[in-house]
């Protein structure tokens, strides 16, 4: 190996390995000092636990330690009707929420675009406001709105003569009530980001289209939608991830019931871990969720990626 050292390097005064290390240390010690706290935190509280999750998923675990069981946890999870039901509920929830959130936030952003800057800011603030409070608080309000006897929704229905609906107590309806509670609040992030994106589309694109006699719909389909694609991609990915991770709403509003009709994957992970104390199986469920989120993000990048520049 010695022979391979180039003359340029060989020409420099040769330092002993110790001296080289010392010089390296003196040159970079402050850089490592600055990143050390974050790197240590990430290693201990994210990277190590992720590896640990892969280990736990192949073990039968109690607090004393684990015993290897191979693929048993995954086999059990996939064979479980409850897991399949949770998966179905989570997929339905995510699908409807992503579609509704993307649509409503785009519509709202398009509607506020022609307004004055002051009014735009006012509406953006109004739409963002419900998003600053916790999901717990909003979910508690929804329980009250959905309350069978004195809740606001059944009161509204009674005005038009519809008998009361058991929004959260009827297993056929409960999941849709949770979807409804989510989609009725327009996501502020979508409004703000779409509004910024629409604002940065050059006016002359539309003017040119008008000269050509393009209709309102044609402008929307051929100019607005394509140029909003990067924003749509970003939002649909983060909303899909958020949708798949639905937990707090379910935990507070129904606890996964009635008769598991609103059980979602994270609610199931939570119960498997902290009611059944089956840590191995809970890890397997969480890793399957992880894989699904990764697959969906990948698909969205595949279909929505674009190299539009303007």
């Amino acid at each position, binding site marked *: 190996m010695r022979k391979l050292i180039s003359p340029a390097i060989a020409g420099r005064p040769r330092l002993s390995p110790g001296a080289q290390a010392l010089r390296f240390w003196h040159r*970079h010690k*402050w*850089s*490592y000092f*600055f990143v050390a*706290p*974050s*790197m240590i*935190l*990430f290693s201990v*509280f*994210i990277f*190590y*636990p*992720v590896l*640990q*999750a892969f280990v*736990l998923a192949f073990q039968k*675990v109690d607090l004393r330690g684990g015993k290897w069981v191979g693929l048993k946890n995954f086999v059990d999870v996939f064979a479980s009707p409850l897991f399949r039901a949770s998966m179905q509920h989570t997929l339905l929830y995510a699908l409807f929420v992503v579609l509704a959130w993307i649509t*409503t936030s785009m*519509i*709202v952003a398009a*509607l506020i675009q*022609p307004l004055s800057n002051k009014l735009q800011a006012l*509406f953006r603030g*109004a*739409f*963002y*406001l*419900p998003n*600053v*409070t*916790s*999901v*717990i*608080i909003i979910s*508690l*309000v*929804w329980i*009250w709105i959905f309350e069978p006897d*004195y809740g606001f929704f059944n*009161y509204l229905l009674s005005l038009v003569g519809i008998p009361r609906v058991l929004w959260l107590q009827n297993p056929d309806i409960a999941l849709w009530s949770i979807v409804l509670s989510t989609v*009725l609040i327009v996501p502020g992030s979508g409004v*703000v*980001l779409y509004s910024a994106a629409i604002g940065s589309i050059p006016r002359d694109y539309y003017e040119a289209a008008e000269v050509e006699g393009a209709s309102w719909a044609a402008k929307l389909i051929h100019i607005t939608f394509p140029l909003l694609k990067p924003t749509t991609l*970003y939002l649909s*990915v983060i909303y899909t991830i958020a949708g798949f*991770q639905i937990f707090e709403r379910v935990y*507070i509003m129904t606890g996964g019931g009635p008769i598991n009709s609103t059980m979602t994957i*994270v609610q199931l*992970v939570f119960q498997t*871990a*902290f009611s059944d104390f089956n*840590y191995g199986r*809970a*890890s397997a469920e*969480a*890793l399957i*969720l*992880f894989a699904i989120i990764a697959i969906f993000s990948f698909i969205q990048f595949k279909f929505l990626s674009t190299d539009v520049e303007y």
Partner: protein
Amino acid sequence: METQSPQTVVASTSPRFTLDRLQRVLPRLVTYVLLILIAAISLFPLYWLFNTALTPATSTVKLPPDVIPANATLQNFVDIWRLPGLGKLRIGGEPTGIVMSRMLLWFLNTLFIAAFSTGVHLLFDSMAGYAFAKRKFPGSNLFFYLILAALMIPGQVTLVPLYIMMTKLRFINSYVGVILPGLADVIGIFLLKQYIQTLPRELEEAARMDGASEWQTYARIIVPLSAPAMGVTAIFAFQRYWNAFLWPLVILQSPDLFTLQVGLSFIHTSEFGTNYGLLMAGAALAAVPMIIFFFAFQKYFMQGLRIGAVKG
């Protein structure tokens, strides 16, 4: 031309009014009506929260409901202060002799956890952001990509391993257990790195030539200049800790140690769970600080959202 349309007649008789004008005003009118309607639906749960919180308990369970708080009262807020019982303030895990309303206790607990964690975030995130933005060192790219990769890992994956770790370290039911794992969060590092990159290199070089140490360059030059990004980071961190639920729920067991969010879910499952006036008053107390926060720093919220989206 006996089939002349009525519009033309009207338009020709009073050109300054009616259809011509209507055509210009109508789209704008429809826009306003639609926007106000959608905003009203979006804001309704928040409105209903405060409406119910201000309604006397006896009027909550009646039909029709009061759509505006007709007999507004603060009684629910007085009751929520009293009903979940009293608790002892703990400092460093040890109960002190100080006894107070649990609601106040939860408020102080949440404030402490959120403020402390936000402070630590500002220090560590600005240090790392500075190193990644301005300093070349072996491994910097690898480290940064590792941290970005952590973004893709859903919190549920690390939930069980972290719980086992905290159990082994005996951090269950303690604030150390609540705070420590949350500190590994990428947003602040990313925001600060992006911002510090835009600061001119000459400033640091000038400081070094004046004989400032590496730490002084960071503390006296970089930190003050990145105040706007620090503000955005602080707001996002504080909001995250204030609204956190799953992890505190898993870690905290004694009601005296609960945060507001965990405390609210505790009241919800308690004997007062169907006293909606009371529940909404508690929820309102937890919501108001974030709402005030939002109105005070709205600009930063929007900025953070856009910087956050750039990474996507």
